[in-house]
């Protein structure tokens, strides 16, 4: 097994090289803005840019609304499927996986044609409607991840007993979902929320085709017109993704372990 271990190291080191060299190169490039010395000038320029602040804020707000919409949509559905309609599970799971099959650009193309200004439901006729459609589109893109996270969380709790106990105490459905189920799957919901955030924050296709002043189109625009700022933005975006994923990892330590799973 000596040679096996050797090759395992070779694989690991080569993989690490492939993944770290672009990060190092980007970091190095982002610090070269001032001739002849390393500096954080590019970061200073980017962070001070009003369009950066506006587009980033816009995307953060869009992400928050996406998460709220996703939770409102997924938690009651996943709960109800577990409690009352297990026969519908394959259908709902199939639907939640569809956004992985249908490319985002196709979904948004459909929106543009279906909800244009002259349609019965003219989402695109107003700025507010378009923003709403953006959030809806993001919630659709995040659906596979959100549903999986919540469903995994529900697997670890005894939905039926909790529901019956709450019902005996006189709770209605809203109370059961909001004050019994949701707190019990909060960690799973938060994992889904951070993943949603990571997906939404730099998303380009939907925002660009709906003409929203989001972070993704801003990034693209910077890439087309500047040299050093895009590298700084790439590092910032990587840090955001890293932050979201680390939070998920940290949260998963607090998650209750399912009895059905080994270890």
């Amino acid at each position, binding site marked *: *097994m000596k040679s*096996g*271990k050797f090759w*395992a*190291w070779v*694989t*690991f080191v080569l*993989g690490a090289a*492939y*993944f770290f*060299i672009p990060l190092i*190169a*980007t970091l190095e*490039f982002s610090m070269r803005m001032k001739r002849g010395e390393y500096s954080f000038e590019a970061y200073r320029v980017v962070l001070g840019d009003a369009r950066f602040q506006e587009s980033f804020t816009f995307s953060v707000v869009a992400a928050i609304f996406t998460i709220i919409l996703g939770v*409102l949509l*997924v938690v*009651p*559905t996943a709960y*109800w499927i577990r409690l009352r*309609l297990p026969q*519908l599970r394959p259908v709902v799971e199939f*639907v939640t*996986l*569809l*956004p*992985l*099959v*249908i*490319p*985002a*650009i*196709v*979904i*948004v*193309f*459909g*929106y*543009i044609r279906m909800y244009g200004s002259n349609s019965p439901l003219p989402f695109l006729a107003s700025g507010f409607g378009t923003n709403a459609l953006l959030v*809806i589109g993001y919630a*659709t893109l995040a*659906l596979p991840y959100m549903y999986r996270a919540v469903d995994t969380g529900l697997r670890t709790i005894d939905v039926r007993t909790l529901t019956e106990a709450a019902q005996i105490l006189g709770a209605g459905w809203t109370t059961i979902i909001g004050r019994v189920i949701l707190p019990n799957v909060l960690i799973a919901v938060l994992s889904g929320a951070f993943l949603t955030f990571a*997906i939404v924050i*730099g998303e*380009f*296709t939907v925002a660009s*085709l709906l003409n929203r002043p989001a972070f*993704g189109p801003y*990034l*693209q625009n910077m*890439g087309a017109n500047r040299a050093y700022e*895009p*590298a700084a*933005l790439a590092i910032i*975006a*990587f840090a955001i*993704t*890293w932050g*979201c*994923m680390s939070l998920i*990892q940290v949260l998963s330590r607090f998650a209750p372990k399912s009895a059905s799973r080994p270890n």
Partner: protein
Amino acid sequence: MTDISLSGSSAAGKTIPPAARAMRLPTQWLGVAPFIIFALMFLILPTLYLIIGAFQNADGAFTLQNIADLAQPTIVAAYWISIKVSVASSLLGAFIGLAIAIAIVRGGLPNWTRSAALTFSGVASQFAGVPLAFAFLATLGRLGLLTVLLRSIGFDLYQHGFNVLSFWGLTLTYLYFQIPLMVVIIVPAIDGLKKEWGEAAATLGATQWQYWRMVVIPVLWPSFLGTFILLFANAFGAIATAYALTGSSLNIVPIVLYAQIRGDVLHNANLGYAIAFGMIFITGLANVFYIWFRTRSERWLK
């Protein structure tokens, strides 16, 4: 009530009494109604709208002309380069990802390598889109760190035909999220290989090679193939990275579709629908295989 209808169905086929169905539908189905309505309005109907549009002419009559029009050279070339990049990046991503996964799970490496690789894979698999393009431009672009370093030791990448704005450049960039995605999905499958199987094989006198050929590969094969297909669909639908990396110098299908949505560059709205339909058709076909392989692999991993 469920019990009654169940015992009833075993006696008299699968028909539920109409009265019971009428009583059940509203209360039970109300709980999933918001989800169903949302999925219909914002996922299924918009997609169907495009699919139907792909088979209609400008007056709304049925036609196959749009599908036939896909055969024009620029569109065929776009599909071809898209399929090539997707196949290359998913094939390489699948094999390299599998190698890394086996190395960290079975290679006898210290424990930190596994958790480090898994954490990093989780991040990198989501690090796509525009920033990824920036990172690769800073690495392998004409002024990128690696390009400059290699030139300083006497090897000019760009003299040797490499260009980050090309098929291989895009493939290499896509691998940055394809490999980690493979690692994230395949590690649980490798964990699912039971120790007892190895011991049983050894007891029966199998060599290491036989154990791999007759146990490991057949068990991993479906999830490997399934993940490969998922990677393919993942690459095929991606646009942001390619758009930010190459502008419109590399015309993959999503970029053609993007241009069509923005400005009807094909001067035929229904042809745009046909391009979208072609994309759904290809990723849909890939995913039919994926679902099929996944159900096969899950039998082993329980």
